[in-house]
């Protein structure tokens, strides 16, 4: 293999892009847009979820536990209490439920008349070994969006605990002590930024690779190239180098943007992350090359994109952990290269792992890239 000829092919490929400003913009801005959009939409916490509080609690011994919890709820950023009805407004329970039904608010949180008294009795019974009938908070919730419903439950629970512990010193007999082995202070964006990086590199290298090769075939430049001394391996390697480089640049753009915009953490070696994406880019370029031989036009080539993209988005652990993938589909995840790229990049960036821990996914990616390059070369060598 002559490196000079490999470099000639790479230079030609990159030069073609240089003249095509729109494609360059696509290569840079699409990943940028992806990380910015995903970061701002998925990365943020839920805020200002509209709820009503209907507090009918009369209190007990001059104290209203419900009023204290309601006060806590009014101070959270997650919830926005649109209406607060104090004791004596019992008739408001019905209209508040109506507002949930009309989707004007997400939940109506109801404390009944004897809430404080019931809590007191339950606490007394608990300390005297008597049967306990717990007091209850009724949350009538529109659970159309499970994330929002969960956020409301969590906020109520947190408010309740804060009041019981801090104000009434009712300390629960069990406490969970968390010790973060990895991911101290990690946000959701730290989890999915490596995935978005891999996804963008995969999508773009595959797409421009398959279109480039279909164009090489349909414009007969490939025929002309094959009547020169360049070997099929050199030609494939030249393209791989160029597209690997593009994947690398994209990853740097995404990493830079994620650090600047969202302050993501990179606990490990950033170079190792880029190597991961480089291997993925080379492999996906090879896959694009292979599939290009089955497409007669750019229009047919583009039809492969959703076929490759959707399983990768859904089954490679980009946004959801692999554990969330149904067991019947999990074997498919093992055949998706992005799974290994995301796993390796995430472990390097959040866990701070080095080569000694992530060698296996990197080896699989390297094997995938090598296999794709070998098959691409073989497919070119086959003459009709």
């Amino acid at each position, binding site marked *: 293999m*002559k490196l*000079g*000829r490999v470099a*000639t*092919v790479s*230079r*030609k490929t990159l*030069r*073609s892009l240089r*003249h*095509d400003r729109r494609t360059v913009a696509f290569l840079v801005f699409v990943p940028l847009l992806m990380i910015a959009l995903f970061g701002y939409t998925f990365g943020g916490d839920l805020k200002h979820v509209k709820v009503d509080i209907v507090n009918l609690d009369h209190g007990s011994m001059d104290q209203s536990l419900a009023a204290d919890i309601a006060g806590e709820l009014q101070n959270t950023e997650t919830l926005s209490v649109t209406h607060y009805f104090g004791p004596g407004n019992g008739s408001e329970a019905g209209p508040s439920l109506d507002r949930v039904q009309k989707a004007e608010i997400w939940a109506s949180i109801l404390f009944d008349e004897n809430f404080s008294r019931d809590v007191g009795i339950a606490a007394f019974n608990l300390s005297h070994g008597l049967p306990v009938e717990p007091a209850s908070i009724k949350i009538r919730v529109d659970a159309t969006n499970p994330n929002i419903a969960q956020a409301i439950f969590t906020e109520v629970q947190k408010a309740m605990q804060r009041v019981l512990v801090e104000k009434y010193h009712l300390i629960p007999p069990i406490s969970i002590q968390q010790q973060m082995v990895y991911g101290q202070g990690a946000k959701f964006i730290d989890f999915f930024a490596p995935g978005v990086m891999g996804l963008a590199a995969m999508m773009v290298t595959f797409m421009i690779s398959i279109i480039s090769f279909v164009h090489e075939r349909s*414009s*007969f*430049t490939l*025929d*002309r*190239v*094959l*009547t*020169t*001394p*360049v*070997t099929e391996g050199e030609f494939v390697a030249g393209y791989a180098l160029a597209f690997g480089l593009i994947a690398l640049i994209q990853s740097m753009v995404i990493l830079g943007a994620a650090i600047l915009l969202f302050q993501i953490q990179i606990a490990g070696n950033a170079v190792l992350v880029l190597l991961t994406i480089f291997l993925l880019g080379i492999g996906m370029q090879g896959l694009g090359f292979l599939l290009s031989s089955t497409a007669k036009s750019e229009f047919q080539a583009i039809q492969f994109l959703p076929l490759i993209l959707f399983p990768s988005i859904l089954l490679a652990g980009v946004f959801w952990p692999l554990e969330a993938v149904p067991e019947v589909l999990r074997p498919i995840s093992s055949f998706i290269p992005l799974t290994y790229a995301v796993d390796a990049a995430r472990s390097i960036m959040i866990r701070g792992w080095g080569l000694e821990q992530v060698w296996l996914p990197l080896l699989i990616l390297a094997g995938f890239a090598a296999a794709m390059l070998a098959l691409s070369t073989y497919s070119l060598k086959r*003459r*009709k």
Partner: protein
Amino acid sequence: MSNGPVVEANRLRKDFDGTVALTGLDLRVERGTLYGMIGPNGSGKTTCIRILTGLLRASGGEASVLGVKVPSKSILSRIGYMPQELAVYSDLSVHENLEFFAGLFSVKGEDFLRREKEVLRLIDLPSRKDDLISTLSGGMKHRVSLACALIHDPELLFLDEPTVGVDPELRVGFWDYFNELKRQGKTIIMTTHYMDEAVRCDVVGMMRLGEMMAEGSPQELMSASSASNLEDAFLSFARRPRA
């Protein structure tokens, strides 16, 4: 340098999924010859050239180019190929196309600049050197395609319809250059539709239905068919019953 034929094909056959493109072609081209293949569409001219350049595998028979059985990578640095289609990168400039193809033949530095100047003069496009191919006219693109086939100064040229889309004045220039290459001992095998061009070849092969119908110098072919021009000669041979 071998004294044998530059191109030799014996009983060359090619089938494409049941369609026969070549039915047993014999061909022999001597060094320094300007060989013209004429024939209607589908007569097998392009298929023959694609087998000789190694782009297709023959279904039967055998062929050798520059003394080496094809397909073979070893001869590719010595041949130049201009396909019928444009086969240049429209998103690169004229200079970048030439530099790319020269690079594949390891023609670099001063050698490349000298060759580039020569071929640009031939195709009469020195002033458009830095223009993108996509901004050129159809004829200009065709000229760049020829320049790419010549950039490494090959000893054997396969030109598939090299003058299509080229204006008459420039066609004269092309033919002067082909004759100059011939004087330098280079061999040119071309296909053409223009009978007035075929007359300028040393040897003309008349192809029809995948076989060589007749072969010889233009004068020989016209004498043998008692025709006053190659077109009539072709029609005369075509009307004869097949052997």
